[in-house]
């Protein structure tokens, strides 16, 4: 028999198998815990921390997406501490990243009364648009660093390893090795990264072309598959 734990979430009691995350338990109780980096199909790394909840009024808050339920715990999914952290994370994110094409994060910002001008003159993470292949464009100015694209390209799905994280801290960004074009990288254009990107950072070229108001002809020309040059056989 699997062991179970019993805890209360916002006053409601629930019993779940040991190892169940707080997020899973909260969802069973229809409690709304916001997430940004979490995705059912990728390894949860506890990055964005907007899912933090208060467990037993502890010294620090716990990320619901990765923290396991503990027996007799008292969990509050939305109190003052939790709200401050969520609001401040969203305010800082909005001051750094272009979130115009991230409707879910926009809704969250409304829900948490975010001051969209909280950090005047703050440095933004701006990157030039990367349009280096016929299939998709990459606009890392819209990247929130959820790591999903890097993960599906690697051990979470594809084992292609075209993408990596480069830099550190605020300057962290997604890149290919030496920032080469995707066409020169091991990328097989499987499209998995596009599928998991929560913002407009990665999108199909057709969608980009339509957004830019390109004519159908231009879109077709720009998405034509080039003949692969440079294929060398390794010994």
């Amino acid at each position, binding site marked *: 028999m699997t062991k179970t734990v019993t805890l209360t979430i916002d006053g409601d009691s629930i019993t779940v198998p040991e190892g169940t995350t707080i997020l899973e338990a909260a969802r069973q109780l229809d409690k709304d815990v916001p997430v*940004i980096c979490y995705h059912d199909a990728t390894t949860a*790394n*506890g*990055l*964005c*921390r*907007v899912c*933090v909840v208060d467990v037993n009024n502890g*010294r*620090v*808050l716990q*990320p619901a997406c*990765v923290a*396991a339920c503990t027996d007799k715990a008292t969990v509050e999914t939305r109190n003052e*501490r939790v709200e*401050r*952290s969520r*609001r*401040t*994370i969203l*305010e*800082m*994110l909005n*001051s*750094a990243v272009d979130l115009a094409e991230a409707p879910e994060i926009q809704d969250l910002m409304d829900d948490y009364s975010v001051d969209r001008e*909280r*950090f*005047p*003159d*703050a*440095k933004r993470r701006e990157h030039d648009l990367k349009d280096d292949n016929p299939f998709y464009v990459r606009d890392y100015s819209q990247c*929130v*660093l959820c790591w999903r694209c890097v993960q599906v390209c*690697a051990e979470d799905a594809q084992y292609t*390893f*075209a*993408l*990596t*994280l*480069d*830099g*550190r*801290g*605020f*300057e*962290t960004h997604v*890149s*290919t*090795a*030496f920032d080469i074009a995707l066409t020169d*990288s*091991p990328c097989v254009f499987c499209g998995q990264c596009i599928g998991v990107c929560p913002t407009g950072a990665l999108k199909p070229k057709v969608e980009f072309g339509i957004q830019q108001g390109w004519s159908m002809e231009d879109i077709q020309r720009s998405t034509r598959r080039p003949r692969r040059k440079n294929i060398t056989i390794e010994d």
Partner: protein
Amino acid sequence: MNELDAILAPYQGRQRDALLPVLWDVQTAYGYISADAVHAISHTLRVPESDIYGVIGFYSLFHDEPVGETVIRVCTDLSCGLAGADDVLHELLVEIGIGHGETSSDGRYTIGHTTCLGLCEHAPAALVSRRGVGEHSVASATSQRLLNGTERYGAVVGGDALNLLQDLDQPLQDYAALRQALFDLTQEQVIAEVEQSGLIGRGGAAFPTGMKWKFTHAVDKWPKYVVCNADESEPGTFKDRVLMEHRPHLILEGMALCGYAIGASKGYLFVRGEYPLATSEHLVEAIAEAEAAGLLGDNIMGSDFSFRVEIRRGAGAYICGEETALFEAIEGKRGFPRIKPPYPTTHGLFQQPTVVNNVETLSAVVGIVEHGAAWFKQWGTEKSAGTKLISISGHVGRPGVYEINPGMTLRELIEDHCGGFVGELQAVLMGGAAGTFLTPDEIDVRLTFEDLRAAGSTLGSGAIMVFNTSVDMRDVLGRLGKFFQHESCGKCFPCQLGTQRQMEILVREPLAGDRERLVDIGLTMTEASLCGLGQTAASAVLSAIQRWPELF
């Protein structure tokens, strides 16, 4: 065989955990790591090129573009800042005629700055890397000294020197404590002695050492590992450097004792990359000596216990002092901290049971096993047993490493041992950048873990920085802000974004609402960050807001 093949030859058949050593070898030879080199390394270790590129991009000491034959990095962190480091850097740039971070057109020099080098008692300090040679440190740096050559510095030590700072630079004799353990004590007895001694980890997190060993001993999974944390990158901390340079055998014996106690036959000693090659070579020599004397290696002293120690060099990342990030670095990855639980006692290095301890902690174990827990407890208090090393820098007469009997007050330490205050005291920063400030009327606090905790402060790694009234506290806060902005690993949003926003606010002219901004950023980093770096990245700032609200 070309040069690159020759460098890679010894690594044939090795795996990803050899990545940092390979990158160091390639960079030492060429000055940087080229795309061709990454391609070749990828084949040798079977690691994707993108991953290798990401690793190079994580560590500040690695370059993926050509740099000058000599790279000079002047420390502009707290203590060096007070000692005129900004001027030294400026003079150098003028002398060579380049901008910050640039390479001279003749390809001879690249010049920039760095965070604390752990040489604060010799401030200002700098790190000089020469192609084909490696790294060395320059103490009391001037632009002329930096351009002209090598310099050795002596450690400044003092205090009561009761235990760890005795017998400096003694030649290898015997590992008496290890001998005793191997022939007279069971694993459980060694662990019990360490538990009874009340030894608490010296790396900053203050976890009971005996308990950590006991948990790891209890896990039924092999191999197990001992990791000695010599990353020592907390600004203002340099005690482990002194132990590594002057008592290397004490550290190695402590690691072997831990290995015996938990059932590990392999230990890694992870030294920060900024410590000059001389430091790690010193340790390599000590290992060779001990192996030659049968005190390390197979069947130590004829027993059936075998234990080997491997030195690993970091490559410039404060976060790699965090224990799980350190494991990732040894495994050849970007130094991202892992989510805990699981803890290192069950899932540590290579996901195996691991004890990770600070240099000073492992050194202290030797006396405990040799002379017993009661001997150790003659010093300190019930909750802060044993002597403690303190690194003190800034405005005191004699900055250096002091061994104290915990319980003396901060004022006593400085007035009776460290040559007194220089100028009129304004503030003391306890526990390094991740610590908290004290004002002049708080310095009669006793130096123990419990007294400082009760005072809302911390002993942390034992770093104490003293600032007199000539110092602009906004400047100090700005440097702290830059430190964390530079060192955040970038994994979790609160710290990745918060360290940047906090730094921006601290270095610009104050604006209305800044105090509230800093408090929101600070509490969010403290409560929502993934690891100890983010959780303490605002602690000095928040303590300054309490003490000097008018500054914000």
